């Protein structure tokens, strides 16, 4: 009933096109996470939806309604601003209640919902304070509470937890997830935190340079990045990339070794005989082998970082560096030469020139 | 701290708001003064100190023009430095321009620097310069009534030695006598004169009351005339300069009061005065109520808001200039005691210790030349102080206005009223009594007798304070002049 549909939305600031014909369909009740590097246009896209920016092309629909030309207040959405925009002249209570008051709800109801929102965001002690008397994180929570109490069908959150300490962020993340399960508002959530993205999102839309480059469920984004950029952007540490070249028999030579692609890709590789190619693989999908075998490459251990849940190895393969994550009890030391095993099913091959995944 | 600064700022603004730019004597007055749109005339009355009221003669063009000697070329005085000429006359910007670019153009003896401002400013400057001993202004051009103050402050040079040098030009004798300020020395040389005339739009003439002639009108006939006009046009088309810088009080002092009561101060609350105000109220019935905003009458004459008016010659001349075919000038109306009119005389004096005395004398000689006096009339509508006839080659608009001026002075019942004498700086207070009287009786409609009583008391208090004796047309008094 309140799905969100961007149809070739374009936004131009002066001479730069900041949103480049973005189309995106978000289902009713879906929790969509917007992920992307700073300046790629996430906030701008949200503002187009909220009506704070007038689009230069395309349409924006909420449910069946074309809201492209509606004023913000007629779009029936709630929003957490990246800059909070908490009113300095109102107390925390009045800030949280602001949207409710604008709807002329009965004061009992306003009180109830405001207190509820304050409780959820642990603001009950601060209700009588002015924003200037709050910390940055507290102010941010006021902004979140103000949006949540609206119980709007569409909820936009622009990095709502960015200013909280790790622990609080963890709590809030869980709260938001629970809340979403409860109220089922169609949500667009902007974040730079991949864990947040992976944990909260029903789907993740990755933006790059004004475009949505991939939109899928979190595990697919993680496992099957649509291009080199996404693979390199998501995951800590991100995906490893190695240069290779396609041989006449469809295998790929990487350094001195040969790697055989998954059988499903054989047709695609046949056409690429002799071309350079990129091998992408996540650190946890590499295993150490005791001797050379099929799909192994020799590597030199440079750094060993024990991180508790796993060990992170930095290795040199030919002239390139890669990261490998191994079990914490794996015995390994720096300056060791080892064999690395590549699981062909977990490799993501990409066109060397465009960086697009080969499917 | 922020708050303190804000308070300080606000206080600063308030203070600035209340205090004027520093002048010689710092006085709280608003920083910006409204300049009259056209204020050629004095705020203080000229006060002849002679006991014998001198009838001022108006120039008569009928007399055969006397051959005037060609004035000798002015010799460059040795005294160096600029010649600063301060004046309370010709203050409107256009007149200042005329003064600098036309009238003083041919004066080559020194570099004349003409500075014109309100009377207060000029007098303050002269007195302050005398006090400090650093005199910069050499020549002083002010109204007759301003000179006694300057003399009292010993700020004037004795010009008696200059008089023989000016013998080639026929300056009106009575004016020269006035220039002695009641002493046996000459303190100023007459400069120029002006008066007030009636001006009527020709469209109004058809509504003149039967058997009334415009050249010999009475105030009662003026009321009747106004009534006829209003009946025909449904508009009130008489006008008076009763705006904030208008000269209505002069009309009260020099025209209405003398014409009805034969006096001014002594008769201020007389029965004659009551009659005058009653008649004037009748005229006011048909007077454009916008008169309270008129500072000069030429603008409303030209826009035809007003058809009939009386005002200073310099303040109606543009009507003749812009539409010479539309207007006629005529003498002011007469009352039971005669057709009184007022002559305004300005003179030239030299400041004591003037830095450029020779240049100032040369400029006096220059400004009193017949041809320069004629230029004055042509350019700024002030009349010559010479016995000789008006030049014959006057531009048409000057001739049209001069027509009424001459008829006024030659009318069989014409009498001259003098401006207040010996009031000095209190001239403004005196004028205020007239203005308040008019406002209360005519505008606010208060009872005439009550108002006259109140105002006469104020007048008496003022005159007592000043110990000023009566002047013509009031009969001479021994003590301070008092309303009966």
């Amino acid at each position: 009933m309140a799905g969100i549909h961007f149809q070739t939305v374009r936004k131009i600031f002066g001479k730069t096109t900041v949103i480049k014909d973005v189309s995106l369909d978000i289902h009713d009740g879906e929790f969509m996470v917007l992920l992307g590097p700073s300046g790629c246009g996430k906030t701008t896209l949200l503002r187009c939806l909220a009506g704070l920016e007038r689009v230069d092309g395309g349409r924006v629909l909420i449910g069946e309604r074309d809201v492209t030309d509606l004023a913000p207040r007629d779009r029936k959405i709630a929003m957490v601003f990246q800059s909070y925009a908490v009113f300095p002249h109102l107390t925390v209570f009045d800030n949280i209640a602001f949207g409710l008051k604008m709807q002329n709800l009965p004061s009992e109801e306003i009180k109830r919902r405001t207190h509820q929102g304050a409780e959820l965001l642990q603001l009950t002690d601060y209700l009588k304070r002015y924003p200037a008397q709050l910390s940055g994180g507290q102010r941010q929570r006021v902004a979140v509470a103000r949006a949540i109490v609206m119980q709007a069908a569409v909820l936009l959150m622009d990095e709502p937890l960015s200013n909280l300490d790790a622990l609080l962020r963890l709590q809030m993340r869980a709260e938001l997830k629970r809340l979403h399960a409860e109220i089922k508002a169609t949500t667009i959530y902007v974040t730079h935190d991949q864990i947040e993205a992976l944990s909260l999102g029903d789907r993740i839309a990755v933006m790059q340079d004004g475009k949505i480059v991939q939109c899928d469920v979190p595990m697919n984004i993680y496992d099957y990045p649509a291009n080199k950029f996404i693979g390199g952007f998501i995951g800590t540490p991100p995906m490893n990339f190695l240069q290779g070249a396609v041989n006449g028999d469809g295998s790929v030579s990487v350094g001195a070794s040969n790697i055989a692609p998954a059988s499903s890709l054989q047709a695609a590789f046949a056409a690429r005989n002799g071309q350079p190619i990129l091998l992408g693989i996540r650190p946890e999908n590499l295993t150490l082998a005791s001797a050379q075998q099929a799909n192994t490459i020799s590597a030199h251990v440079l750094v060993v970082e024990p991180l508790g849940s796993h060990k992170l190895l930095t290795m040199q393969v030919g002239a390139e560096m890669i990261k490998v994550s191994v079990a914490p009890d794996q015995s390994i030391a720096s300056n060791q030469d080892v064999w690395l095993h590549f699981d062909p099913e977990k490799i993501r091959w990409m066109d060397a020139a465009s960086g697009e995944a080969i499917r | 701290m922020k708050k303190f600064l804000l308070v300080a700022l606000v206080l600063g603004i308030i203070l600035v708001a209340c205090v004027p730019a520093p002048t010689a004597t710092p006085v709280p007055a608003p920083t910006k003064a409204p300049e009259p749109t056209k204020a050629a005339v004095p705020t203080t009355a000229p006060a002849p100190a002679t006991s014998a009221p001198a009838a001022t003669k108006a120039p008569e063009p009928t007399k055969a023009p006397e051959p005037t000697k060609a004035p000798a070329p002015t010799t460059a005085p040795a005294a160096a430095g600029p010649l600063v000429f301060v004046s309370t006359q010709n203050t409107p910007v256009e007149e200042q321009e005329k003064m600098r670019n036309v009238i003083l153009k041919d004066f080559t003896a020194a570099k004349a620097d003409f500075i014109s401002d309100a009377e207060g400013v000029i007098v303050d400057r002269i007195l302050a310069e005398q006090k400090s001993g650093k005199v910069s202004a050499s020549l002083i051009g002010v109204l007759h009534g301003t000179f006694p103050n300057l003399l009292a402050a010993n700020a004037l040079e004795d010009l008696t030695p200059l008089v023989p040098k000016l013998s080639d030009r026929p300056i009106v004798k009575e004016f020269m006598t006035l220039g002695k300020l009641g002493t046996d020395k000459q303190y100023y040389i007459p400069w120029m004169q002006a008066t007030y005339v009636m001006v009527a739009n020709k469209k109004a003439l058809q509504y003149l009351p039967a058997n009334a002639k415009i050249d010999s009108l009475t105030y009662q006939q003026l009321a009747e005339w106004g009534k006829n006009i209003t009946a025909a046009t449904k508009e009130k088309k008489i006008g008076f300069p009763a705006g904030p810088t208008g000269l209505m009080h002069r009309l009260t002092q020099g025209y209405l009061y003398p014409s009805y009561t034969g006096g001014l101060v002594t008769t201020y609350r007389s029965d004659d005065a009551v009659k005058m105000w009653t008649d004037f109220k009748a005229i006011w019935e048909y007077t454009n109520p916008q008169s309270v905003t008129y500072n000069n009458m030429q603008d409303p004459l030209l826009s035809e808001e007003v058809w009939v008016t009386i005002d200073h010659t310099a303040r109606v001349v543009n009507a003749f200039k812009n539409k010479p075919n539309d207007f006629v000038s005529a003498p002011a109306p007469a009352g039971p005691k005669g057709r009184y009119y007022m002559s305004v005389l300005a003179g030239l004096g030299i400041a004591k210790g003037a830095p450029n005395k020779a240049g100032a004398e040369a400029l006096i000689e220059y400004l009193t030349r017949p041809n320069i006096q004629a230029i004055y009339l042509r350019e700024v509508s002030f009349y010559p102080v010479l016995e000789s006839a008006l030049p014959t080659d006057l531009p048409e608009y000057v001739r049209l206005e001069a027509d009424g001026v001459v008829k006024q002075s030659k009318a069989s019942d014409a009498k001259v009223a003098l401006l207040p004498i010996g009031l000095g700086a209190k001239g403004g207070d005196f004028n205020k009594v007239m203005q308040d009287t008019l406002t209360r009786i005519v505008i606010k409609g208060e009872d005439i007798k009550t108002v006259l009583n109140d105002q006469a008391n104020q007048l008496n208090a003022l005159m007592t304070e000043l110990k000023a004796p009566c002047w013509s047309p009031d009969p001479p008094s021994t003590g301070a002049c008092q309303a009966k």
Partner: protein
Amino acid sequence: MRSKLESLLPYSLLAPTLLFVTLLIVIPIFQAFLLAFQSADGSFTLAHFQKMAADTSFGDALKFTFLLLIFIVPLQVVLALMMALLIHTRFKGHTFFLYIYAIPLAISDLAAGIAWLAIFTERGYLNSILNQLGILEKPFLFLSYQNLPAMFGTIVIAESWRATAIVMTILLAGLQLIPRDYFEAADVFGANTLKRTLFVVLPLLRPSLQNALIIRTIFAFQTFSVVFALAGRVIPVMAGESYNWYVTNRNPGVAAAYAVLILIFTVAATWFYFKFLKTSAAEAGYD
């Protein structure tokens, strides 16, 4: 040593201003008080105040000054606020309107008075236009002393025209200091224009409003050129009377008495605004 120097720095920076204020403001105002309370022989006197109060115009001047204040200040603030809000929407061509609005700023009050006289006078522009449009057959006398409300109305209009721009400038500057986010948040959370103005814009604008009100009120006490031009002596105001007493009546004592009275009223008004429009530091958003 260094800290001592540093603590002196603010004072040394303030010194020129202080000197200026002392020379051009404190001393003249002291002299104004002297003039107002000193008789000719130098002794203390209230005679100037008595003369002022006894004058025919005094009551009227007081009455009309305050009437003008009551009419003009709220009207102007509302008008200026609307103008500032309009400009602040940055609609296409808003700079053009900004320039138009700013014209009166560049015109002296005297010139404004003359311009409005030309508009309102019997054969003025307004009557001519109304006549051409066939609305009026005969000119309407706006400036008749017999129609004081009309006369007063013209003054209110002319004064509003003249000084609204300055109020607008202050308010617009204040508006531009407010981050746009607040307005956007109000929009998103369902405030219509009226509610947004009432609950967000005005409260955030309060410091500027306070300044604007103070400055406008001070201006209102100073008003007189326009009044002079349009109403002559029929509608006297305090500043005008002060001017008259000084320039026309040559009586500095009474003029100074008026100035002192104006000062007292202005200070009182300023105090009033400070007291009743006070913003707490927390509300104003200072940390």
